[in-house]
C-alpha cells in the first residue's frame, strides 16, 4: 500500500491540523510531479453536489495549485458512466491519476479526510 509514507507523515503532524492548514500559504505545484486527474460524480445540481464541488475546488487550489484537473460528471446526463467506477454514493470523488484509484464519498466537508483520501496529507505537513 502506498499509504505507508502518508501514514507516517500524518502521525508526525500535530492534531489541530485544519487550523494549521488554514494559516499555511498555498504551496506551489512542484515541478515534475504527476498531474492530479479528479472526477467528481454528481447527480444534478443538488446542495450536496454544489458543496462538494466548492470544497474540492478550494482544496485543490490550496494544495494542488496548477497541477490538477477536475472533471464533473453529472450522472443524470450520463447515467451509463456510473457503472465504470461502480458509483453508488453521490457525490463521489475519484482520483484517477496518480494511481492507484481512490474514492472519496460525501460532500468533502471534512478536509482532513479528503486529504487522507487523496494521499495529500504529506503535502499539508510540508507546509
Amino acid at each position, binding site marked *: 500500500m502506498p499509504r505507508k509514507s502518508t501514514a507516517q507523515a500524518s502521525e508526525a503532524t500535530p492534531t489541530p491540523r485544519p487550523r494549521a492548514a488554514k494559516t499555511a500559504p498555498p504551496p506551489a505545484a512542484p515541478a515534475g510531479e504527476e498531474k492530479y486527474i479528479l472526477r467528481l460524480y454528481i447527480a444534478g445540481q443538488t446542495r*450536496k453536489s454544489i*458543496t462538494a464541488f466548492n470544497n474540492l475546488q478550494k482544496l485543490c487550489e490550496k494544495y494542488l495549485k496548477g497541477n490538477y484537473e477536475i472533471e464533473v460528471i453529472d450522472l443524470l446526463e450520463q447515467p451509463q458512466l456510473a*457503472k465504470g467506477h461502480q458509483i453508488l*454514493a*453521490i457525490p463521489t470523488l475519484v482520483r484517477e491519476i496518480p494511481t492507484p484509484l481512490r474514492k472519496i*464519498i460525501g*460532500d468533502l466537508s*471534512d478536509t482532513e*479526510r479528503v486529504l487522507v483520501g487523496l494521499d495529500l496529507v504529506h503535502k499539508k505537513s510540508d507546509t
Partner: protein
Amino acid sequence: MARTRKPKPPEPDRLLKAPTGIRGLDQITRGGLPVGRPTLVCGGPGCGKSLMSMEFLVRGATEFGEPGLFISFEESDTDLRANFGSLFPELPDLLNRGQLGIEFFRISRAEFEETGEYDLEGLFIQLALAIDAIGARRIALDTIETLFSGLPNEAIVRAELVRLFRWLKDRNLTTVITGERGAGTLTRHGLEEYVSDCVLLLDHRIEEQISTRRLRIVKYRGSAHGTNEYPFIIDDHGLSVLPVTSLGLAHKVSSERVPTGIERLDDMLVGGFYRGSSILVAGTAGTGKSSIAATFAGAACNRGERCLYFAFEESADQIVRNMLSIGLDLRPCIKSGHLQIHATRPTLLGIEQHLVSIHRSIDDLRPSTVVIDPISNMIQAGSLHQANAMLLRLVDHMKSLGITIMFTSLTHGDQALESTMIQISSLMDTWILLRDIELGGERNRGLYVIKSRGMAHSNQIREFIMTESGIELLDPYLGPEGVLTGSARLSQEAREEAQRLAHRHQIERQRRRLERLERVAEAKLAVQRELIASKKDEISRIIEQAEASERSLRRDAEAMARSRKAATKSPKKA
C-alpha cells in the same frame, strides 16, 4: 422487452400476486409474491436465499414473460453465471436475449473514504439503467445488507433503503430482497422493518446428521397464507416446497378395482384393490413384501399405466434382477418409461425432503400407481411423529390425485405384528400381512388380509409361495391342528389322502359284504320257496288221494245200500 405480458388482469380490489413458478411456493402463498412490492427472504447462510431469488427471476422470465434483474452485492456476475448456470441451463440464453440481467455492485469499505453527507443516488441511477435495459418487472437484491457493512454511515444507509423500497414500489417492481438472519431477529440489520408486505423465512436444520430445509411465511400483508413450516429441497431442478395441505378428507373415491397382479389375491379381495386406495403390505424380513410390490407394479405397467417405485433398500438393477428369479421381467416396463425406479438411501435426506422429492417425481411422471418400499426405513430417517405427519400428507396427496399407493413395511419378529404399525394402519385402506409360519423345521410364508375397507375380503390365511413363474397363493390346510404349510401341509395332505383311501376301501368292503349277504339270503329264500313248492305238491297230492278215496268209499256205500234196498240209514243203525 419483447415479452412483457401481464400474468394477471388487474383487479383493483384485490392484491395482485406474481406467481413464482417455484414448485409448491405458489400454493402456500396462494398465488405468489405481491406484485409491485418488496418481499424479504431471510435465513442463515446457505439456506437457499440467493437460489430462491434467482429461481423467482428465471421462472418469471421463462414461464410468465416477466424479465428479471438480479442485483448482487456479494458475488461477482461471472461467479453467479457459473453457479446458477448448472442449475438453470436456460440462464445463458435468457441473458443473451435480455430476459434476464445480472448486475454486480461491489461495496468494500476499504475503497472508500467518507467525508460528509452523501446519498446513494448512484445506486438508483445504475438500477434504473439496468431495469430499463431489459424492461425488468422483477428484481432481486442479494444481499442488500452488504450496504450496511460497506458504508460506514448507518443512518444514511437506512434512510436510503427506505427511499429505495419506495422507489421500487413506485416503479411497480416485484422485488425479492434477501437478508442474513441475525441473532434474535429476522435479519442482522433489521431489514424487516422496511419490508412489511411479505416476509419469508428459510431455515436449514440438522437433526441427527440429517438436514432438513424449511420455509415459513412470517407475514404476508393483505393475503391469507399457510402458516406452517413447509419443508423444501434444493436439487438440480431448483427449489421445491412441499405444501402441507390439509385436504380434509374430501377427495373423490373410485369404485374401480385395480388387479393386484396375483390372481388369487384378487379373489381374496373380491377383485383387487380400489383405485386410489392406500395399501400396506407388512411383514417380517424375507416374507416377500418387495415381490408383492414389484408384482403389483409390473401388473400396472402391463396394463399400460405408469408406476413410480421408490426403493429405499435395493438399487434399481437389483430389484430387476431379483424379480427375474420369480419370473417377473421389469426391464420392458422400464424401457418403455412406464416404470420408474427411484432408489435412494433413506438417510440421504431428511424425511420431509424425501416427501418433497416424492411429490416432485409424482408431478413429473403422473403415475397411477406408486410403490414405496419400504416405508419403515424412511421412518427411521425421522422421528415417529414426523413420520406420521409425513405419511398423512403423502397419503392425502396421493388420494387427492387418485393414485393407488402401496407401502411395504418391515415388522420385527419380536413385536406383535399388529401393534407395530398401529400408527399408520389407520391411514391404510387395505392391510395385507405376510408372516412366517415355522413348522416342522421349515419356514413358510403365509398371507392374510387384515383389513380392506369397503370389500368383503377373505378371512383365510393363504400359503404364499414364489415360483419361477411368479407368486402363487395356495389353499391352506385348515384342520384341527391349525394352518399347515409347506412340507407339513404336503404330508398332512398325503396322510389325509391315505385316510380317504382307507375309508373308501372300508365302504367298498361293507358294500360287498352287504351284497354277499343279500345273495345268501336270496339263495336261502329260493331253497325255501322250492321246499314250500314241493310240500305244496305233496300235500295237494295227498288231498287229491284222500278226496278220491272218499269218493270211492261213498260210491261203495251207495252201491251197498242200493244192494240192501232199504238200508239208506247207516249200517250201525241197521
